[in-house]
Structure formats: C-alpha cells, structure tokens
C-alpha cells in the first residue's frame, strides 16, 4: 500500500513526489484532479471528446511544470483550472460560428427515464441560458455555482480582482434569471408565483 494514497496528502506534495520520481504519485493526482477538470471542461465546451483533449493537455502541462513546482506557493487545482479555462477559451474562439444546438447532450445512465426528461429539460434550459452569457461571465458563474469555488480562487484562475469576480457572477446570475424568466412555466416554477 502506498503511503501517500491518503487524502490528507496535499496535491502539491503529490506533485513534488511525482517530480522526485515516485511512480504512484501521478496515478493518485490524476484520480483526484481529472474528474474535476474534465467535468469543468465539458460544461464549458459541451463536447466530451474536446473536454477529454483539453483535460489531457492540461495534465500534460502539469507533468511538465512539476520539476519547477514550488510547494506552498499556489494550489494545483487553481493552476489547473486556469489552464483548462485558457484551453477552453482557445477552442471556443476557434469554433466560433458553430451553432449551439450542434453541441452534443450529456449522457446520464443512472437516472430513470422520467427524471432524465425532467432534468434534461431544466438542464437544457440552464445550458441554453448559460450559452447566452458572455464567455467570462459564464466561466465565473460555472466556477462559483457549479464547481463551488470561492471568489479569491476564481479571481486567481481568471486573473482578475475579487471585486471583478463578484461583479461578473452577480451580472451573470441576473442575466440568467432574466433569460430563464421566459421559460419559468415550462420549467414548472411559475404555479405559486403571486
């Protein structure tokens, strides 16, 4: 059994272990970090194959930077989210002009058919609404409300001040509310409204 498989070993300690030649550190780091960045890339790009490419590219950059990584200076997750955000932005710029309805739907094998239909409708509504936001607003909203990150970390990821992040997420939420207001009934949220 590997000593550093415990969850209390920090990400950057694992990265330093990897750089020192530890064979298990890469597997542990990948198991920890990949699901998060893959899901985030998928939410931004809406395409699993592209999200996988972005995630692999981001992890490759992490392996490359590992020997120069200075423990305690930055969080590995923050650094990775920033790389993913930049890679996604590049891809979105490249594919500008592609109709949003060509983006494939996510797969969900676990839920029942009824749940899938209901959730899909709501999820689609939110995805449609998110896709109408400016790119930076969308990223800030996703990082804050889906990834659950704090504003200081988002500020670091997006290379912004904390106040700018607060402003972006607040404007993003207001815009989402306005966009979704037209679909309130369809989503089943208007019945008890005064």
């Amino acid at each position, binding site marked *: 059994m590997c000593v550093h498989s415990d969850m209390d070993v920090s990400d950057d300690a694992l990265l330093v272990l*990897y*750089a*020192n*030649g*530890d*064979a298990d550190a*890469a*597997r542990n780091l*990948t*198991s920890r970090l*990949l*699901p998060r960045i*893959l*899901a985030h890339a*998928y*939410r931004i790009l809406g395409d*699993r194959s592209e*999200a*996988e490419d972005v*995630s*692999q590219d981001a*992890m*490759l950059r992490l*392996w*490359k930077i*590992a*020997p120069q990584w200075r423990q305690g200076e930055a969080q590995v997750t923050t650094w990775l989210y920033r790389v993913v955000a930049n890679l996604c932005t590049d891809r979105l710029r490249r594919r500008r002009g592609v109709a949003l309805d060509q983006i494939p739907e*996510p797969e*969900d094998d676990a839920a029942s058919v009824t749940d899938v239909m209901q*959730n*899909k409708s*709501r*999820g689609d*509504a*939110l*995805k449609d609404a998110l896709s109408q936001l400016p790119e930076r607003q969308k990223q800030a909203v996703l990082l804050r*409300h*889906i990834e659950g990150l704090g504003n200081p970390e988002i500020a670091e990821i997006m290379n912004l001040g904390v106040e700018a992040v607060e402003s972006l997420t607040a404007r993003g*939420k207001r815009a*989402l*509310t306005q966009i*979704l207001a037209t679909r*309130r009934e369809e*989503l089943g*949220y208007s019945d008890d*409204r005064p």
Partner: protein
Amino acid sequence: MTDLNRDDDVLNTLFHELKQQTTVIPSDDLMARILADAAEMQPNPHALMASDTLPRRPLWQAVFAAIGGWPAVSGLATAGIAGIWIGVSGLPDSVAGNFTALLSGPEVYLYELEDGLSGGSSFEIEEG
C-alpha cells in the same frame, strides 16, 4: 425581495441539477493516456538516485575548485614569484649581495657576534 429569493432558489436548483447532469466519469482510455504522458514526462528516478549517491570530493578539491582551479593557481604562483623578485631587487646592494650569496652557494657564513653566545667571546666560523 421574495421574488429575488425565489429567483435565487430556482437558479440554485438548476445549478445543482446541471452539476448532477454533467458529472463526467473519466474513461479508462483517458486515464491510460494521461498516465502514459506522466510516465514519459517524469524525471528519471534512477538518474536522480545516481546523482544523490555520487561520491563527495575531498576538501582540497573543493577549495581548489572554489578559488578557480588551475588558472587561478598559476596566477597566484606567478604573482608570488614576482613579489619575491621585486622584494629582493629593491634591497640595498650589500644585503642583496649577502642574500644572493646565501641563495646561490653552499657556503654559510656566521659573522662575529658582538656579545657572543658563550662568555662574551667572539668567534667566527667560516666554511667553504
């Protein structure tokens, strides 16, 4: 205010649902590709170990290297010889002559010592 709270509730519910819906489990193939990259990029542990176990150099070699190696040592030697030459050539002729004689031959002179070594007698030894 109630409307705002309700809007927030609706949005939070939608965020939660979207998160559930878009949770992605990495495929085995992706994991394998990433781990292959990691193995390829990982610094060679054997190389690291080899550099850790290299024998330490002796102190004199460390000092020798620290002052600049052979070029620095030859410079120091030249400066030392030049210093001796300048010092000798600057002495008065008599002293310089005696000094030169001391350096140049096997003859050793012990001149009269005024308050000699034994009972005030003076002596002179000359060897040649």
